[in-house]
């Protein structure tokens, strides 16, 4: 049996924004690590988009060598603490685990999280403090690279390039680095301390961060091209979709991006911060992804009564399993196979009109296609509607730079992640990624390899 993750009680956690999962103790982690069969041909590694040596680090945990485990993961992944928390493991490494076929997979995500939390914890490593392996500082190559955007792909690319010996500068448009890890994922799922720590580690590698620099506005890509030997664009998805229905301009209709930015980046939930956020009584969140579940749980913590409305069924929900489970525990209502048709109100939202849907055939994304059932409209009262129905690539680059892009403003790249501009690479959601942190990291790493290859050739 898989060792359950210790979590905080529902009643307690809906009152604050602190993290829900408490994390394994050493004994629990060792017990869970012992479940790993150490397969000869481990399939879990194939399930990981960046190919972390999963059995290797689990073996280290089993031997209580946490530092060693951390080193194994960090070889591939500089955002260890982040991935242990936000990866949809049930669809990646854990899905491939041989134990999953018969029962429950090894809790790879929880173990990764345990590793990141305790890699510097000397109390839990009795008599086994590993030799202080001083990381060899890479030889400086006297070539520089600019990274646009400090989200997961940008950070991964920056860390890898710095590790290779390049001088790296990261440009961030907002006032703090981290991108979606900062403004998108809430504190109760990914404490900002973890993000700060990971960024601090990357900073110590010699990476410079310039915040408040909106590339495209403050400087252009052409400016960066002149000043740097290579440029990586990782500006991510940043354009919130709206449903184009009647009433979306009413007060109380808000995009999940705005709601979460106010809460996560601007800390609007804390009375010490100036940014306001509406604390509505009845909140309807539209959508079924992580953004929807995050918004719903954040609204719950502000004291609202929350209902998630999703147009497909439970099985198709793209959100992380653990988060859906936590949301249900916290008393969030779910209405499936339903879609809004109009928002009711004068100036302010008073209600929402919904229509029932059924699933038919397949759409372009390979999922079941929701189709409205005629004459099944019904109304629900609410004071706030949060739309979390996906987002498009950030159009800033496509609008301000002559770079080859698609209709939806995503940037076109080749297999080496090169764009149409020389020495400019791109990765993550800006090239039309699938909105997971780990695939963005993979893009950042691939780009770093090809940037290195290009700069060595020169």
């Amino acid at each position, binding site marked *: 049996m898989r060792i359950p993750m210790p979590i905080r009680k529902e009643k307690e956690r809906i009152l604050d924004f602190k993290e829900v999962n408490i994390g394994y103790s050493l004994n629990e982690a060792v017990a869970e690590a012992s479940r790993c069969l150490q397969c000869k041909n481990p399939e879990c590694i194939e399930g990981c988009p960046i190919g972390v040596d999963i059995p290797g680090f689990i073996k280290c945990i089993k031997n209580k060598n946490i530092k060693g485990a951390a080193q194994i993961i960090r070889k591939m992944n500089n955002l260890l603490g982040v991935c242990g928390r936000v990866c949809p493991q049930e669809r990646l490494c854990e899905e491939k685990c041989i134990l999953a076929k018969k029962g429950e997979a090894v809790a790879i995500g929880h173990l990764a999280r345990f590793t990141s939390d305790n890699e510097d914890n000397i109390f839990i490593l009795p008599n086994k403090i590993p030799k202080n392996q001083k990381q060899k500082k890479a030889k400086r190559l006297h070539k520089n690279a600019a990274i646009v955007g400090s989200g997961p792909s940008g950070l991964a690319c920056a860390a890898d390039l710095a590790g290779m010996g390049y001088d790296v500068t990261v440009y961030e*448009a*907002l*006032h703090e680095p981290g991108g979606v890890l900062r*403004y998108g994922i809430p504190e109760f799922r990914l404490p900002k301390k973890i993000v700060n720590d990971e960024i601090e580690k990357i900073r110590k590698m010699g990476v410079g961060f310039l*915040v*408040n*620099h*909106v590339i495209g*506005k*403050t*400087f*252009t890509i052409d400016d960066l091209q002149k000043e740097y030997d290579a440029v990586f664009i990782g500006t991510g998805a*940043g*354009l*919130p*979709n*709206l*449903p*184009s*229905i*009647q009433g*979306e*301009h009413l*007060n*109380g209709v*808000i*995009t999940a*991006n*705005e709601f979460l*930015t*106010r809460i996560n*980046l*601007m*800390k609007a939930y804390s009375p*010490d*911060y*100036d*940014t*306001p*956020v*509406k604390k509505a009584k009845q909140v309807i969140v539209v959508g079924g992804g992580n953004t929807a579940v995050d918004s719903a749980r954040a609204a719950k913590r502000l004291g609202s009564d929350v209902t998630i409305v999703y147009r497909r069924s439970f099985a198709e929900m793209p959100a992380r399993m653990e988060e859906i489970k936590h949301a249900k525990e916290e008393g969030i209502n779910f209405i499936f196979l339903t879609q809004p048709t109009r928002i009711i109100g004068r*100036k302010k939202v008073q209600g929402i009109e919904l229509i029932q849907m059924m699933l038919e055939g397949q759409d372009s994304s390979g999922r079941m296609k929701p189709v409205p059932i005629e004459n099944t409209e019904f109304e629900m009262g609410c004071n706030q509607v949060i739309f979390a*129905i*996906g*987002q*498009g690539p*950030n*159009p*800033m680059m496509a*609008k301000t730079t002559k770079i080859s892009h698609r209709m*939806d403003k995503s940037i076109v790249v080749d297999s080496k992640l090169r764009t149409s501009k020389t020495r400019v690479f791109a990765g993550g959601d800006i090239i039309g990624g699938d909105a997971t942190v780990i695939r963005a990291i993979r893009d950042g790493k691939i780009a770093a390899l090809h940037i290195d290859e290009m700069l060595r050739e020169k």
Partner: protein
Amino acid sequence: MYKILKKQKIGQGIYELRIEAKHIVKYAKPGNFIILRKNETGERAPFTIANLDNKSITILFNVVGKTTADLAKLKKGDSIKDVAGPLGNPSEIGEFGTVCIVSGGTGCASAYLLSKALKEKRNKVINILGAKSKDQIIWEDKFSNISDRLIVCTDDGSKGMHCLVTKPLEKLLKKQYFNRVIAIGPPVMMKEVARLTYQRARTFVHLAPIMVDGIGMCGGCRVKVGNETKFACVDGPEFDAHEVDFDSIIYRNSRYFDEEQESHEKHHGSCITKAATKKKTPVKQKSKKTISKKKAANKKDIASRKKKKTINKKPVKKKTARKTKK
């Protein structure tokens, strides 16, 4: 950290701040704005660039809420934690001919740089400045240096004409043709200007709705323009006045009024006046009442407005806003 090089009180509750921000001046143009955050706990607040030189930008603001009250307390030599920009699209500057720039309250701040740039392009620039009273008129001396004709209006008649900015505009429109009218100020003022110039002059307005990031990510600043949803921060702030749905802008600006008032009272112990939401430039609280009274008096106006409404309605109904991507 960005240093304050100059702070000056230029009128009743109106302040000028010159902030050192070398990274912004390279591409800053008239119409651009910045977003600043005073300190760690402050909010991200947008301000139009009122003036700039080779290393600093100047902003003007009226104390309307907590953020502006906090900024007013800063002194020369203090610093501001974050300044990002230049954001938004610059205003279109061309050789238009005769341009009338109508501005009210701190909207005059944006009008100055724009008037200067238009003047340099050999346009004939007519400025109409509005303020509550004589000690709230912004940069009258600066405007008089660049303007071909400067008309000052005050609500209380303490200086210049005793009327709203729309009255001299209405008179001028009867007498002469404008190649372009630009209105910058409170939404009610811009709405009235748009009504007056409808089918008479090409008119643009500068919108300053509530926003958070200012780089097109949150969608909080969305406005209805024509049949589409636009984001004022990346698609604007300049829009065709005759396409803008001002009514939704006016009520959307009051979204966080309760929260802002609470925050302001907590920190500064005084009540802020309604209609003044913290993040926008509007100062001139030209009350809706005076306008509506005026309208009531003028039956013709009402009739023409009704007609216009019916004309406008048709296309609005047909299509719904912004197409969802993917």
